[in-house]
């Protein structure tokens, strides 16, 4: 028995069981959801161990062989994404216990939360293009509902805007799939890759690649398609903001882009320099534009939303550099940003939980009143800024190293220089919320479960930073190699050892 289908089957079955369990007890729902997310975390660690032995595990759904049936292609990059998803889902789930008390229909929250998890897990491990679209829509539709979970005017407006933009992206993806299917007569990613290798990159395929890049840029909120994110992510409940900013946009936008560009279309810096320069250009534009916008914000979570857009730009620059260090840096950045930004949104949750406001002008003096939250914020922020020995430093280091190795010295200098933007907008929150002297009437410490969730992420930020060499060897390096082996992906899917019998 293989564990690969369990990654999305367990959250799915939990999601559908929760409405029934919710009729018995609300605490039971939270316990089940937390235990399930912890089980997913353990399974993800086991998945990492599996990919150390074989570089690609192919799972045939219903035992149909690859071009006919749907396959799950589980390689090191998938294992890495699954691990990051499960970490953020677990901490968010733990955090939700007290936070979600603000809302009605609490068990519905966990149904949607588990559906979003199932969707993301599915995207990360599927080896079929249409299957990817279905999981993408499962995750996206659940996220529209979760953004609107508070059903106030602000949340509904944000959700509607997000839904319109997101569906433009989703439907463009569907159109691209239809065109690709018309040309290649297959939906299997490996088979598409084989067909493209034999035909060559014709203008038709370039058009499709452009459509896919457009669709995924909307999902990843890259400038100029980012306008929904600063509305949607702050409007969601804090654990969901943490999930959406931490990992959701990376799975739906970045993972899909990287997988399709490197493994399916088989592009690399040598055979498509213009395309990779475009990726770098989009990335730099995102970093600068969203970073400058973040400086102007007066809302705790909205500032973090813009910061997310800006940080996603770094990941795109890393993939755009396209050599081993660049790609490894981008993958490292996915981890660093997931931990850091997940943590920052959780601190915003506990601040909102205790004070009831997100306005930076009204918040003051929380550094002493909520010391755990304040220190969690500092660790998360310092990691994102890139202070050694936290994880964000090594992520940035590898991207810069990749730029220098690729002969793009100007890019390395700009990437380091733009970190000043990150520093200045994150200091703005530190300054006005935690450092500024001021009195807010009787603020208590954050509830215990929230502190546990934040401390869990702080420990991970520290540990992943200190143990970066081990991470490089066992997690990031294999994941980068999985992307950089290009169209060899197809041979591995068709010819690899299969766990089925």
């Amino acid at each position, binding site marked *: *028995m293989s564990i690969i289908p*369990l990654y999305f089957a367990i959250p799915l079955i939990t999601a559908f069981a929760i409405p029934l369990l919710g009729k018995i007890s609300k605490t039971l729902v939270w316990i089940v959801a937390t235990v399930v997310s912890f089980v997913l975390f353990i399974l993800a660690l086991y998945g990492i161990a599996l990919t150390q032995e074989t570089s690609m595990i192919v799972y045939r*759904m219903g035992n149909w062989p690859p071009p006919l049936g749907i396959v799950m292609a589980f390689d090191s990059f998938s294992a890495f994404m699954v691990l990051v998803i499960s970490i953020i889902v677990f901490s968010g789930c733990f955090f939700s216990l007290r936070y979600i008390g603000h809302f009605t229909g609490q068990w519905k929250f966990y149904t949607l939360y588990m559906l979003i998890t199932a969707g993301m897990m599915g995207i990360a491990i599927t080896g079929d293009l249409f299957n990817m679209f279905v999981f993408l829509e499962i995750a996206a539709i659940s996220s529209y509902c979760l953004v609107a979970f508070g059903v106030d005017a602000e949340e509904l407006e944000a959700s509607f805007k997000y839904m319109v933009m997101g569906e433009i992206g989703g439907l463009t993806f569907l159109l691209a799939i239809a065109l690709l299917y018309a040309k290649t007569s297959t939906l299997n990613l490996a088979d598409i890759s084989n067909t493209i290798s034999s035909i060559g990159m014709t203008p038709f395929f370039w058009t499709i690649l452009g459509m896919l890049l457009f669709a995924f840029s909307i999902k990843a909120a890259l400038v100029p398609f980012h306008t929904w994110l600063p509305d949607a992510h702050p409007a969601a409940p804090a654990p969901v903001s943490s999930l959406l900013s931490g990992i959701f946009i990376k799975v739906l936008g970045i993972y899909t882009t990287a997988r399709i560009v490197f493994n399916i279309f088989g592009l690399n810096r040598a055979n498509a320099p213009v395309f990779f320069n475009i990726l770098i250009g989009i990335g730099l534009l995102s970093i600068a534009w969203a970073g400058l916008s973040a400086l102007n914000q007066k809302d705790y979570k909205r500032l973090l939303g813009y910061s997310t857009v800006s940080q996603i730009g770094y990941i795109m620059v890393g993939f755009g550099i396209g050599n081993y260090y660049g790609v490894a840096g981008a993958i490292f950045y996915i981890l660093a940003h997931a931990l850091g930004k997940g943590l920052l949104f959780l601190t915003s949750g506990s601040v909102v939980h205790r004070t009831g406001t997100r306005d930076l002008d009204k918040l003051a003096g929380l550094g002493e009143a909520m010391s755990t939250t304040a220190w969690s914020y500092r660790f998360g922020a310092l990691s994102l800024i890139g202070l050694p020995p936290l994880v964000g430093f090594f992520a940035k280091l590898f991207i810069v190293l990749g730029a220098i190795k690729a002969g793009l010295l100007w890019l390395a200098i700009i990437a380091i220089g733009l970190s000043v933007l990150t520093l200045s907008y994150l200091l703005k929150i530190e300054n006005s919320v935690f450092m500024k002297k001021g009195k807010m009437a009787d603020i208590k410490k954050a509830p215990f479960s929230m502190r546990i969730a934040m401390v869990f992420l702080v420990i991970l930020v520290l540990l992943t930073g200190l143990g970066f060499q081990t991470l490089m060897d066992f997690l990031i390096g294999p994941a980068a190699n999985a992307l950089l082996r290009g169209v060899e992906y197809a041979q591995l899917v068709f010819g690899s050892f299969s766990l089925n019998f």
Partner: protein
Amino acid sequence: MKGMSLIVKTITNIMIGFIFLYGVYIILHGHLTPGGGFAGGVIVAGVFVLRYLAFGGSKAGEKKSSITASVFESVGALLFVIIALLGLLIAGVFFFNFLPKGTPLYLLSAGIIPFCNIAIGIKVGAGLFSIFLALAAFKYIMED
């Protein structure tokens, strides 16, 4: 008078059983004829919508039906995932068709596919009806 005219009510009363039966027929013959779980589920949901439109509803009744509908929706989805997981437990492959396939074109054939269709039928029927109820309950939400 609550609901629609007497003519509509009478005809609804006569037709409702046939429509429901037709929906069930479409679900059960999903592996043999066009249609299947989704199409049959829509027809079954149509029965409840028709009944609601013809006879009118009350706030309390709507709340009760929406709870029942959500239970059935969860059960349908759970059934589908459990069938898929049974394949994993029995034959070691997710979604494996572990039942005997039978003779083609007979009602009892195609292994797990009829059962998947039934699960989808329950899920879609209950789901569409709860969407309808949510739209109908909108007026109460606006009044509150």
